[in-house]
């Protein structure tokens, strides 16, 4: 940080830390008033908690095979019943949260890592670089998302890591598009011009002056995309292209459970409910964040 910037900002009435805090606490207070958002964050928090502390939350070892208790319905010993190997369904769903959440999170990180710099570079530098980057993004975007993810995992081979990579690539154009817009309009504003005039370097302008403009749309997009990624991970695993047995995964459990629809329908019901709950929570959170951070778009 240069000394010049320090003296410029020292002219304001409040110390910088206090001002920044009030800016975020304003959003925070607005968010706290949003009932849907609060429900979303609590449920998603609970799912994340089970994912992180799965060994403590689960009542059984999710891999433990016990042929004596095959295909038993919900009971006090096995809250959600047992599967065809006598494995505890509740424990597998808890560990499945770990699988789903980590694949979805990894996909979002990857999509941001590809999409955000692309969008920033395209928006800021413009010209042929912009055309090239956005053309490539348009092409990726024109594939139906799940179909592209399917083909990428087909090429890379079915595994959790590859499912996350595939989803990261599929969702990257959405991030690039959503970030390019604000950069494009912000770079023409006076304060950016002013900082260029006083000799700020391009990286400094990008990071210090333009990046804050994209944080809100980035957060909203990441949350909404997270719910898509959860659904897509379940779909890929359901088709056998994501998690490989015996790894507990909601999609795989659902697909396995379908074979016992007559005798043990709960095997297909509960994993689906788990997916729905996690996706619902992240949709609620996404809606609330959009209301707070981007009031123009209300759904």
């Amino acid at each position, binding site marked *: 940080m240069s000394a010049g910037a320090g003296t410029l900002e020292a002219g304001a009435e409040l110390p910088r830390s206090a001002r920044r805090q009030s800016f975020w606490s304003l959003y925070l207070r607005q968010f706290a008033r949003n009932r849907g958002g609060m429900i979303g964050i609590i449920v998603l928090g609970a799912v994340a908690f089970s994912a992180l502390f799965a060994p403590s939350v689960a009542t059984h070892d999710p891999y433990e095979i016990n042929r004596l208790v095959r295909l038993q319905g919900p009971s006090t010993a096995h809250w959600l019943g047992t599967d065809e190997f006598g494995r505890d369904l509740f424990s597998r769903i808890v560990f499945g949260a770990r699988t789903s959440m980590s694949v979805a999170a990894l996909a979002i990180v990857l999509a941001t890592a590809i999409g955000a710099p692309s969008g920033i570079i395209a928006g800021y530098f413009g010209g042929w670089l912009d055309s090239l980057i956005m*053309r490539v993004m348009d092409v*990726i975007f024109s594939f139906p998302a799940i179909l592209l993810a399917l083909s990428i995992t087909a090429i890379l081979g079915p595994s959790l890591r590859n499912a996350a990579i595939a989803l990261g690539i599929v969702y990257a154009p959405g991030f690039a598009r959503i970030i390019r817009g604000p950069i494009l309009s912000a770079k023409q504003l006076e304060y950016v011009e002013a900082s260029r005039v006083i000799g700020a370097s391009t990286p400094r302008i990008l990071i210090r002056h333009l990046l804050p403009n994209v944080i809100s749309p980035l957060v909203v997009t990441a949350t909404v995309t997270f719910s898509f990624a959860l659904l897509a991970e379940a779909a890929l695993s359901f088709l056998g292209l994501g998690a490989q047995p015996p790894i507990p995964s909601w999609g795989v459990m659902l697909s396995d459970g379908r074979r016992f629809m007559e005798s043990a329908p709960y095997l297909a019901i509960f994993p*689906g409910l788990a997916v729905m709950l996690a996706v619902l929570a992240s949709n609620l959170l996404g809606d609330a964040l959009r209301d707070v951070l981007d009031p123009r778009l209300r759904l």
Partner: protein
Amino acid sequence: MIPTLIGVSLIVFFSIRFIPGDIVLVLSGARSDVTEEQRDQLRRNLGLDKPLPVQYVEWVGNAVQGDLGNSLKTQRSIATDIRSRMPVTIQLAIMAALVGLFVGIPAGVIAALRRGTRTELAAQGVALVGLSVPDFWLGTMFLLVASRYFAWYPGAQYVSIFDDVGKNLSIFILPALAVGISLSASLMRITRSALLDVMGSGYIVTARSKGLREAVVLRRHAFKNALIPIITVVGLQLGYLLGGVVIVETVFNLPGVGRYTVQAISDRDYPVVQATVLLITILVLFISLFVDILYAYVDPRIKYGSARSS
């Protein structure tokens, strides 16, 4: 549109080169009974013995003429296989879209008109759940409920709509509902917010104050203007819809392009995967183009000049 088409075909074509390792070794597996000659034969069949640009031009040239190559597994013509499966996929997509439109738009209109009531809250809640349900799970639940509680088993054998309409529809109704519900959820949300936006504008006040009946205000003035964002969402959801169709076909054992693709992926039948992915993506692109043209028809203010590039 044209550059996008070329880009899509390039990605689909080169995707097969990103398979780790030698594709021929991957395909022929570790089987010891495959001789070196057979491997060379496979290499030639895949056209891998020619330079890349030549391969690409040949592949595109053949595809344009309707020759998508042969399946590695069955040796059958992929184009023939797809032709027999396309009607299933298209019918499912159309029926799902109809479910989406006929449930989503009226629900959105009702929610907007009953603003601030429990009806609106309920509609929004249902829509949010609809958006969050995995369609393949919903399909599974439909099957479960139908067979368990109504002792109703949708036909296991596919029947064309031209042979027996009743039987055909009984096979398609559940998968169409499973795919259509998430579409109807997003349509309900956008219809509601678009209509609320429009209802607040000046010309609605004018229309009301000149004494028009509420139904006329709604139909002639409000709904027509709300249609633009609705059409946009329909266009954007098409890819999502077809993705859902691909997976739900597998759930319901429908012999469509989706199940064909999924089967080809597990067989590592790459030419089939390339062909179906290319075809479905092109289909989506053309429908999006159609949606773009629809804008100009719905909204006379939109005119496409020569300045428009895509």
